[in-house]
């Protein structure tokens, strides 16, 4: 039996310990905000926080998640008003929106670790998150806005 805390709530799993956390969150718990894009840590659509650090949930097994704190987009801020979420709305970042949960989870982890990232640091860190619609210019601007409030 694996126990893990998802958005502050305890969950138990007695199925396959090798199941990727992504599919547990989406299909077993019903937290569909975390998205699937590649399954192999190439795209970042599935990004969640594991004890506060951004990880790719498609490449994190239930075994690795045992006894850890998981935060998904649904749990990032109770009112959905994390500075990164607000900045995303301010800049009108999304096109189709599908990659944006992962982008926001990556950006919020970045700002927590590095409250004042340079343009280079933003571009490098966010390069792990693909946006096929090509919202990069606005993602970069929104991360900067969230970090500086400017």
């Amino acid at each position, binding site marked *: 039996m694996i126990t893990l805390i998802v958005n502050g709530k305890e969950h138990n799993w007695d*199925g*396959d310990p*090798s*199941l*990727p956390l*992504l*599919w*547990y969150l*989406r*299909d*077993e718990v*019903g*937290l*569909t*905000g*975390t*998205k*699937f*894009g*590649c*399954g*192999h840590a*190439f*795209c970042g*659509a599935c990004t969640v926080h594991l004890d506060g650090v951004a990880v790719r949930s498609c490449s994190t097994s239930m075994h690795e998640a045992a006894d850890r704190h998981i935060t*998904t*987009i*649904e749990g*990032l801020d109770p009112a*959905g008003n994390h500075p990164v*979420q607000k900045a*995303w*709305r301010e800049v*009108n970042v*999304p*096109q*189709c*929106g*599908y*990659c*944006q*949960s992962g982008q*926001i989870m990556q950006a919020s982890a970045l700002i927590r670790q590095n409250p004042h990232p340079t343009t280079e640091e*933003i*571009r490098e860190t*966010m*390069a*792990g*998150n*693909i*946006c*096929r*619609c*090509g*919202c*990069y*210019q*606005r*993602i*970069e601007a929104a991360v900067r806005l969230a970090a500086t409030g400017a």
Partner: protein
Amino acid sequence: MFQYRVENVSRRGVLQGLGITAGLVLAVPVMSRRGMAATGMATYKTGADKMPHGTVNDPRAFVAIAPDGIVTIIASRSEMGTGVRTSLPMIVADEMNADWGRVQVKQADADEAKYGNQDTDGSRSTRHFLIPMRQVGAAARMMLEAAAAKQWGVPVSEVKADNHEVIHTPTGRKLGYGDLATAAAAEPVPDPSQLQMKDPKDFRYIGKGKVSIVDLHDITVGKAMYGIDTRLPGMKYAVIARPPVVGGKVVSFDPTDAMKVSGVEKVMEVKGWPWPSKFQPLGGVAVIARNTGAAIKGRDALKIVWDDGANAHYDSAVYRRELEEAARKPGLVVRNNGDVDAAMKSADKIVVGEYYLPHFAHAPMEPPVATANVADGKAEIWAPVQSPQGTLDDAAKTLGLKPEDVTVHVTLLGGGFGRKSKCDYALEAAIISQAIGAPVRVQWTREDDIQHDFYHTVSAERIEAGLDKNGKVIAWRHRSVAPTIMSTFKAGANHEAPFELGMGLVDLPFDIQNIRCENPAAEAHTRIGWFRSVSNIPHAFAVQTMVSEIAHATGRDPKDMLLELIGPARLVDVGPSVKDLWDYGEPISSYPIDAGRLRKVVELVAEKGEWGRQVPKGHGLGIAVHRSFVSYVATIVEVAVDSKGKMTIPRVDTAIDCGIYVNPERIQSQIEGAAIMGLSLAKYGEITFKHGRAMQKNFDTFQVGRMSDSPMVTNVHIMPATWAVPPSGVGEPGVPPFAPALCNAIFAATGKRIRHLPIGKQLEV
């Protein structure tokens, strides 16, 4: 656990009555726009009437007002990132003087008889629906005014709708839209010829760019519902192992190990159709499980023997040489002006360019996915589809059901780019659900998506330009060789169809005396489908690279060369040799090929993009222009290539003339995105085949542009327009000029001419 939400109602308030009141909506047959004229507004003919089910302008199909004043507006086209789910309802709201803060948007199910054409493709939504949506809004406004006048017992000329209420002008009395909802529903729908349209100067939302997309908040909190997010009680999760070669099939399979995987419940064969079969599934072996992860693991454990079929020999490297050879020999003449052979003979100099563009995969971030529940002779499908009605019709046929027994709910699309116009994934879900008697969601993995796509065609383009002794181009011969999309519909189709030829080949807008376009035959060996901007990609790449090559050969500035080739402002007549000139389905009278507008976007981008500015060493500027989807787009790229051949893009400027526009903020986002898609296909995009199998699997081998590749800044310049200029496409036309502008910039920076895509390692030293 149970949760599904498909309608994506994006704003507060639960709808209390649908249709101006509940029940009325379906009771009255709606009117189609055919044969109707509206007063008070410039109208123009579009190709909408030729689309299946045309357009509908009856407010009862699109507008509902609840007693609490919440106005619900139906979005009938699919949202894949263009903003259409916001822009079209916003037109209705503006024209009916509704307050956008009290509007909610509801996504339509597939029902073209009710809503008009829903096929969200071809950059058509605004150009076909701007006027019908204005008519819907105007009719709703006039019904509200009539109801208020009756209630007050005053002439309708004394009342006026404004900002969600109707005012009796002489006395200042007011009634809210909610108060009038029931009475307004009882009013007759005004005849379209009697509609009074708003004066465009009074618009509050149209053209302003101040309204955010309706799903913005939900997207940022993870609540927006895509195809992948549908959940039904008792739903199973399936993935399918498909034949690795198009046209292949299952010989035998062993499910033993798959069934041992924890969570796997069933393994079954899925029927496939012989190739070509339009959008029917490829068939294969499905693994059905309690979650997607278990299904994928089960599929990995399957043992399958395949019969690869006739395409097993497909090798894209060999095929490339065949295409290039074909482009060196005469082919079917598809446009002929003057005498190219004689002019070439008399030419002082001939510049030849041979270009090659490979297959690309669409790779929308949400891979194909669909949910179906087929039970008791009825089917219900939830899917991210660009073609809701086509999905419904195909599902009915595939399942052997009557169309009226099939419902298709349209979710948000996590990207589309043309991939989600083909509904094979929805049909797979329907077939499996019917077989197992339970709701099921079929998930494509990224490997499935990249290996079983309807690929962008592969193409060899060859252009010869004959120059007289003054460097003037007197002859132009362009051969385009590419398997046609029609090959997916019809065995043996081996020439580009009119709609492909019309995308930048035979509609060449250049002022040259002698022009010949040829299309040698090419057979398809995999599924070919339309990809954002379609044949414009190879055609524009060849033409716009050639312009830069001629400029170089004659020592001229590429922008001046471009303007000289476009020639004077005029409406371009391609001549009688072009049979079936395809103008994006539009009447050429409404959407002529306008060399003047083409010139103007070049001039606009040159001015705003500071063409000719000094750039540092190792940097270069490139320019390209292209008309597609009846819009005009010009792009300047500044590239920097370092001593190791690493490329970065300091700046991009794009000018677009898309006629009168509704939502400039979304035009900007589409053009920003088009730069990334153009960059992706130029720098990385390539699907290769060996033994009939796609060699790329995931984003490691099929790379797409990332933030680290992306331009440091992309500036978008929108050409101002009046209501006299009909609206044209936005979603696609930003893509074609990007790759040639980039490669022309690379030439300016390095002297290295890129003639085949992707750029890949070509710059490495």
